[in-house]
């Protein structure tokens, strides 16, 4: 069976992510142990809340190096929501330095008339990479569940694997670079399409040795 380490740093609901991974055929392990993260077939970095507390909690639990190692190891790694944002260097939301695994910043949506912030609810994902394994068996422009006020802005646009449009602003909704994948929406809250994405991720992890 495919074992997925779900990193626990006290930032939100892990129950749904784990149940989603189970449904996708994996054995999720909620953990903050570097050894368990290193031994897993794949790693999920979840997270809801704010940027600074997330980074502080990662530091307190000595998780920064284990996360960087996991990304380097080549095993499938999936960041979700805040778990996408903290991969970057910095955020307009906070003062803490991010993990800096991806070059670029996290920015806030600009206010505009009739635009709600947070961007909360179901929106369509536009694919921007061909043959992205995570999008396998999905229809074009699937509806997925978003809830965020900040979005990532990678320096290298080639790593953008999906975009979402809120008002007049088209922003990065997902990135993918080799084994590192991360999404702004919540696959574990996006009904059938979300579960399909988790299934695709678990399949990638099952091929990793």
């Amino acid at each position: 069976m495919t074992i997925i380490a779900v990193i626990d740093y006290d930032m939100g609901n892990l129950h749904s992510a784990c149940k989603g991974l189970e449904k996708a055929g994996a054995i999720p392990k909620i953990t903050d142990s570097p050894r368990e993260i290193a031994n897993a077939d794949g790693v999920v970095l979840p997270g809801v809340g704010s940027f600074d507390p997330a980074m502080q909690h990662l530091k307190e639990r000595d998780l920064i190096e284990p996360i960087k190692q996991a990304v380097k190891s080549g095993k499938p790694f999936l960041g979700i929501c805040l778990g996408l944002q903290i991969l970057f260097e910095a955020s307009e939301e906070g003062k803490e330095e991010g993990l800096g695994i991806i070059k670029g910043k996290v920015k806030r949506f600009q206010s505009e008339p009739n635009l709600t912030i947070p961007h909360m609810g179901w929106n369509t994902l536009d694919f921007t990479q061909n043959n992205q394994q995570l999008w396998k068996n999905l229809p074009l422009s699937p509806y997925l569940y978003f809830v965020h006020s900040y979005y990532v802005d990678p320096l290298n646009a080639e790593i953008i694997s999906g975009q979402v449009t809120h008002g007049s602003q088209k922003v990065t909704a997902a990135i993918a670079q080799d084994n590192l994948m991360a999404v702004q929406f919540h696959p574990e809250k996006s009904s059938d399409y979300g579960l399909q994405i988790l299934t695709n991720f678990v399949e990638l992890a099952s091929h990793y040795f």
Partner: protein
Amino acid sequence: MLAKRILPCLDVNAGRVVKGVNFVDLKDAGDPVELAKVYNDAGADELVFLDITATHEARDTIIDVVYRTAEQVFIPLTVGGGIQTLENVKNLLRAGADKISINSTAVKNPDFINHSSDRFGSQCIVVAIDARKRKNPHNQGWDVYIRGGRENTGKDAILWAQEVAKRGAGELLITSMDADGTQAGYDLELTHAIVEKVEIPVIASGGAGNTHHIYQALTEGKAEAALLASLLHYGHLTVEEIKNYLHKHQVTVRR
């Protein structure tokens, strides 16, 4: 484009779903986990559980209901009713809730909004406002009520909405106490007045009697989402019928 949302609301009393008309005269309408699955399959965009008993014994019941629901239903889940401490919030989020909704607690202790949104993120803090139109023709507007509509706080609903947004609420759930249970339509004026004053999403609640009422709340009322209970629970309308109607009338919905 962001889709407008349809939110079935399940009033839960000691682990069972009930819905009162004007908050009294409760009727049993089923098992929350089963209903949640049915609504997920029917295309509901999110689910809301309101724990209307909120006694100490019932707290554990709702946590169990949330836990079991989150195992089977992969759409966002909001839980409200009787939440008074950060510990309550944490336990519900841990059990699988995505957002918690506070009402009386926010009025009695407004700092709780700041504390809970600082700790857990504003995206998971919904502030519910029960509003009733003032009878005074010289001072028009809406007052905020608490304790299930029994107590007038004397607060102005629009000012209160702005304050809670500033304090860190991520979403507002606006219930018109005048319209609730009447099935004569939402209080569009109230909904619209609040939407115009805040940037966060507003959920309209109270008064839906047909698909056109829902359409009005999302267009004229400018709400992001419509909350529905008895109309759906008793089978007068289905989520699919509502979404088909909205789609036909150029409202973006997830189908």
